[in-house]
């Protein structure tokens, strides 16, 4: 999430609400947008938007803190129980300021629940409890400012709630509660079918993990066989798991051909910082997409321990991995 971009959109919605004629005046609209992007602080009037300004700082701080924490963690106990990045004091202080400024800043509250939880159970329960309230509030704000939209994701005031659910989805996957995760993903896709957050990608991986071929096919059809990197990975692994190796090879060829870098990233898992507050933006069909998809698919791939070994025995896949590795100075 680019906090600044979303704040711009919020400011614009509010301005139009105050002054409907703005919507029909393209020149003034462009001026306003420019100003909102360049110096939003001059346009921010209420606590809700002030909190968004603070949130931007908190998110940047969270990324830095997590990097530091990971550096520290990898230097120490290998048996340390895995838990969400927790108790980042500076991030927490910044988030607390957001929440003080606007108790309904649900992006801040989502992050705060995650970083302050001692265990996955606490983080998941915390978000679960908060969701009811977040949903109600966001719906109210949205009905006030957002135009009638086809999909909840298009309503900018609904997004903090939708993001909160997406983070709970990630946590369920990390806690290996796959059936629960899949149920939540399906609920989310019914709630916001246009799926601006890419929940379907997570769902594809979950269908593969639970060896539900029918479910995976139905999902693929529902989204017009768009051929995301997630879907290619899900299909390759699922067919491999089901022992249909010829079909798996075809799926793997598709993956190697259509998803730049995917073969390399599967063979050599790369680090991606946690999604706070959401999955980074990527260009469809780019190496960025492959990197994210392979990172997210890790839970599926490590659960199928010989999949990568087998994949590297397939000439096209190995060649794609080599080529990408050579071009980008990496090895696997």
């Amino acid at each position: 999430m680019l906090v600044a971009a979303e704040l711009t959109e919020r400011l614009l919605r509010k301005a139009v609400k105050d002054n409907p004629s703005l919507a029909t005046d393209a020149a003034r609209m462009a001026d306003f947008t420019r100003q909102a992007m360049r110096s939003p602080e001059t346009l921010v009037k209420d606590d809700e938007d002030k909190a968004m300004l603070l949130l931007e700082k908190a998110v940047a701080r969270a990324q830095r803190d997590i990097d530091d924490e990971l550096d520290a963690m990898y230097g120490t106990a290998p048996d340390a129980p895995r838990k969400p990045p927790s108790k980042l004091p500076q991030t927490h202080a910044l988030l607390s300021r957001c929440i003080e400024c606007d108790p309904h800043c649900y992006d801040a509250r989502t992050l705060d629940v995650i970083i302050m939880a001692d265990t996955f159970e606490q983080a998941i329960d915390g978000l679960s409890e908060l969701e009811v309230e977040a949903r109600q509030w966001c719906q109210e704000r949205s009905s006030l400012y957002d135009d009638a939209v086809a999909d909840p994701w298009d309503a900018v005031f609904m997004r903090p709630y939708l993001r909160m659910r997406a983070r709970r989805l990630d946590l369920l996957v990390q806690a290996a509660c796959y059936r629960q995760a899949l149920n939540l993903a399906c609920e989310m896709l019914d709630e916001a079918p246009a799926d601006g957050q890419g929940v379907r990608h997570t769902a594809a991986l979950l269908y593969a993990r639970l060896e539900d071929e029918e479910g995976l096919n139905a999902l693929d059809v529902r989204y017009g066989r768009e051929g995301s990197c997630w879907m290619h990975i899900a299909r390759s692994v699922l067919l491999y798991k089901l022992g249909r190796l010829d079909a798996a090879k075809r799926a793997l060829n598709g993956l190697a051909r259509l998803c730049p870098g995917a073969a390399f990233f599967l063979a050599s898992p790369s680090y991606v910082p946690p999604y706070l507050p959401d999955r980074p933006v990527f260009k469809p069909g780019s190496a960025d997409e492959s990197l994210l998809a392979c990172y997210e698919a890790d839970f599926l791939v490590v659960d199928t321990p010989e999949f990568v070994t087998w994949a590297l025995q397939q000439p096209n896949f190995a060649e794609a991995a080599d080529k990408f590795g050579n071009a980008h100075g990496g090895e696997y």
Partner: protein
Amino acid sequence: MSMVPASEDFERLAVRWASSTAAKEYPNLVAMLSAFPERYAKDRDALPQTDADRAFALAGRAAQIFDHQVIEAKTQDDVNRSTVEATAMVDEALKLDPACHDALRIQKNLQRPTRQEMLDFLVEGAERVHDECAERARAVHAMPMQGHMGMGPYMKPYLRWMLDIANEQLSLGRYRASLEVCLKMLDADHDDVAGFRQVAALDYVKLEDEAGFHALRERYPGDDNAWFALAELFLAYKRRDFEAAERELHAIMRTYPQAGITLAYQDELPAGLFGHHEYAEGSDDELFIAVSEAAVVLDENCGDFSSPLSSWISMHPDVEAARVLEESRAQAAQEREGGDQACL
């Protein structure tokens, strides 16, 4: 359910003896069978047996050495000595009987194949192993009746062969394939002497298929084995029903006296070479072995760290308290023993 080489050797020789001329001295079957244990105890080697029986006995002893002595060895020297000894037994077994299925399985394992190679080897041989076992069973008129394959000792090597297939598939992340083998074998052997139900329970957990697991449990009313208990616990955790998970945890701790230590450390043994590692029902060993085999669930999605489920169990306050109590009890017992020895 676990299998024991020594009892299987006894069963094999009993079956062969019953079909041999030696048995004709007895007036009836009951008299004959009641005389057998004494004969077996007195002079096993003098009983009628084929090279295949001798090979089986050797392979069984080798499996015991790998599953017990090698694992429990204190020094690397002991490990090496036991390994050399058991490997020689496997080679000897295959010299006596090139079709000794247990020896073939163990020998392949000793070559350290990848899981996929091991699985390919087992799948390739499965049909042949079945036919050879059946042929041998028929030769001594001991072909078990349909649906009770485990009643005939000569069919048991095939059960172990298939159990290894199911286990390899479970480890490879091919849960439906593993389940398919288990369900087929549970139909072939209603008594399930090999313990396919335990592997199936873990498959259902991995697939998070509650309905499937409960249908499995219903086939075995009254069986509260540790795998079933753990599967209930895991499934409750996965559906985030912590009350139920805690209930299961407490039930496990009531059943197995050393549950605190076992659940806190969650140690992992190498896979048994003669089916599941041997255990007495309701013993601490049972839980220990079940937890070890459940590593596929406990280590799920955890990278270098322990998984949330594994930590939830090991760091549960009741598990922690039980562990401390068990350890202090064990220490006290050790000191008492030490004290006694000092008195002597």
